[in-house]
């Protein structure tokens, strides 16, 4: 599967980034019959909690991504957007931490909603550019925007609570996706 525009790629990629594809998130990625085919091909495995990638699936996914990176040349657009992502990453986490330390009252909620909205408008151009070469990034923009809207509507869980599709959780996945897509590791970056 040396093509990133296949259901196999989309599903295994999601499983790789998120660890597991919960049943309710499957619909966005592939049809039921496509899932069944991927299972027969031994690329993914159904578990009680959702779908995970098999070692075979992960190996194939790695080689697809490697070929994809080779086609893009040494410095792709995605890598350039990642640099800007990192500029936003530390202050965004600081915004999340400040919210968690706050009284989480009306003022704090209003303030964090405004800040998330700022980060959303700054990260959107990055994501849409990354998505030109790596279309699987596009979903982060819509998910972040839904989370920001939920916070603005008064639901503080959508700032950092991982039990809902919160702004920080999506951001965290987007960060992980950059590692996976660019073939870098978190350990390398943290050690640098």
């Amino acid at each position: 599967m040396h093509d990133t525009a296949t259901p196999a790629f989309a599903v295994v990629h999601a499983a790789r980034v998120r660890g597991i594809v919960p049943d309710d998130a499957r619909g966005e990625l592939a049809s039921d019959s496509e899932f069944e085919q991927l299972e027969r091909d031994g690329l993914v495995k159904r578990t009680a909690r959702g779908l995970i990638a098999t070692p075979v699936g992960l190996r194939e996914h790695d080689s697809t991504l490697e070929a994809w990176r080779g086609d893009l040349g040494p410095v792709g657009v995605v890598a350039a957007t990642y640099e800007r992502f990192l500029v936003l990453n530390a202050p965004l986490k600081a915004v999340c931490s400040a919210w968690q330390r706050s009284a989480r009252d009306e003022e704090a909620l209003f303030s964090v909603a405004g800040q998330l909205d700022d980060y959303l408008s700054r990260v959107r151009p990055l994501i849409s550019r990354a998505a030109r070469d790596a279309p699987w990034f596009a979903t982060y923009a819509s998910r972040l925007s839904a989370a920001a809207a939920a916070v603005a509507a008064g639901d503080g869980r959508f700032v950092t609570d991982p039990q809902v599709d919160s702004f920080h959780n999506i951001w965290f996945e987007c960060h992980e996706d950059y590692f996976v897509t660019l073939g870098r590791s978190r350990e390398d970056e943290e050690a640098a």
Partner: protein
Amino acid sequence: MTRPDTGAAPIETAARYVFAVGSGVAPEPRVLGGKGAGLVRLVGLGLPVPPAFVVSCEAGLDYLAQGELSAVASREIHENLVALEVTSGREFGNPERPLLVSVRSGAPVSMPGMMDTVLNVGLTATTVEGLVRETGDPRFAWNCYARFAESYARIVRGLAAHEVESALLDLELSGLTGEERSRAAVAAMQELMIADGGRPVPDDPRQQILEATEAVFRSWNSERAQAYRRLRRIDGGLGTATVVQVMVFGNRGATSGSGVAFTRDPSTGEARPYGDFLFDAQGEDVVDGTVDPASLEDLAAGLPEVHAELVASLARVEEHYRDVCEVEFTVDERELWVLQTRVGQRSGRAALKAAVSFVDEGLIDVAEALGRVTPAQVEAAAAPRFAAAPPDDDVIMRGLGASPGAAVGRAVFDVEDAVTLAGEGHSVVLVRPTTSPSDVRGFIAASAIVTGRGGRTSHAAVVARGMARPAVCGVGAVSVSADGTTATIDGITVERGSIVSVDGVHGTVARGAQPLVPSEDESEIARFLAWAAADSDVPVTAAPLPAEPDGVFATTAGPVVVLDDADHMSEQAANARIQELNAGGEVPAVIVSAAWARRAEDVLRGTCRGLGSSDQVVSLPLLGRGLRAR
């Protein structure tokens, strides 16, 4: 910069619109805004504050009415700029000793939604070279300039964030050094501003300051600020002030640095200064948490005189505000500068313990102590904790206390293990070398989290706090054996399934089940709860009540309606639920979680009255926490 003699600022107090901090002006928030008044108070306490002046709220309102700064305000700003040059021994636009300032908004009341701070105002193509020479760090100086140009484009010129980001993304940066990248970013921002309206960042620092001041005033009427004022019924006629303050630099080598200090430990409430400090760094580095900071003890070891002065300053601040305060400071070549202070955010436990100690110290009375601690904080303070620090021999890992709380559980090193064991009813502690989104399910299942890498603002720490799970981060390299049955950290091996105790406040992981005690046993907490009970109109029930998420419960005061999940409901939904639960009966109290009680107290009172009940709205923790026990 050398500190000027205290009180030497040569400003006449005949000023109408613009007031030098330290000129004898009264700390009146209606005139100077909260931030400006705060700086005046700090100077009054004898603390070293970088020279600053405040353009008043009145000047701002005039600007909004007239569309331009009045002649008097402009003249007074110029006079104060000259005075800043004199006191700082620097000059605007001088490439040898450039004077740089920050420009911030500061309204009489806290106002989210107004303009962000613009830092390093005064940077130009010439003065940036001065900053290069003074810091010896071209990469830093040019990065400051690039960030300044970017803020200017967004905040002062009002360009949309996506336009700014797109322009930066359009740059061809491959193979460039950090300095070259920043140079390219500055040029891109200038071009963008010219394309948009023909005006780049002015070459004249004074003009930059005027424009930034006007931008602050305009932000009083930003959509968000207006929305906030409507929400909180804040008078639109208050206006905002602007604070212009000399920049100091903490990144001038080993005798400089930046930090944030608290007058008391904000997680435990212990009465000793607590804080983070980074040598050779600017304030943002501490706030963003990009680097794990050192502690105040490291500052004491490296720069003892500065540490002593800081501790003395913290004491004065706390005495003045009669509360736990948070102080942002910078050390610029052995000189301490206090930049900002505010009442410090603190954990529930710290809030309660500090309030009790302040009563004991005679600083506040019981009524004020009760008013200072929110019901949510009481609830948090009541969480169990370890009876004592574990014996040294039992401690197997030390790291950063990244999410408060105490938990005992079986160590596991794998997400699936965590989910499986937790599903069988065990308390588990998930230990991971580093964290990725695939670990989040394990976080949710676990009672506590330990990570090898990462600081207090790492993704792992944010996720752990997002679910209120105790966490210790940055314990060192964790290597998990190939079969997943053991993990080794710093030469110590932990077996899968062995019992460990995680202290998310102090950052320790210990072997075995260290004894936990309920917090009520602590004398301060017990005293506080007694004060609260004596003060409450609703009798506190002693007997645990049925453990259901919400419903109508019998108490000694009669039936009460409990909305356990009200935080996540809209007001209408909560009201509907109250009506439904009540079903025509009479309720003496509606009980909701603390955050929601504050948010919608009026609505709830109205509802209670409508139901023919008394108008008690009581938050859960004060009414006998047995209700919450699950």
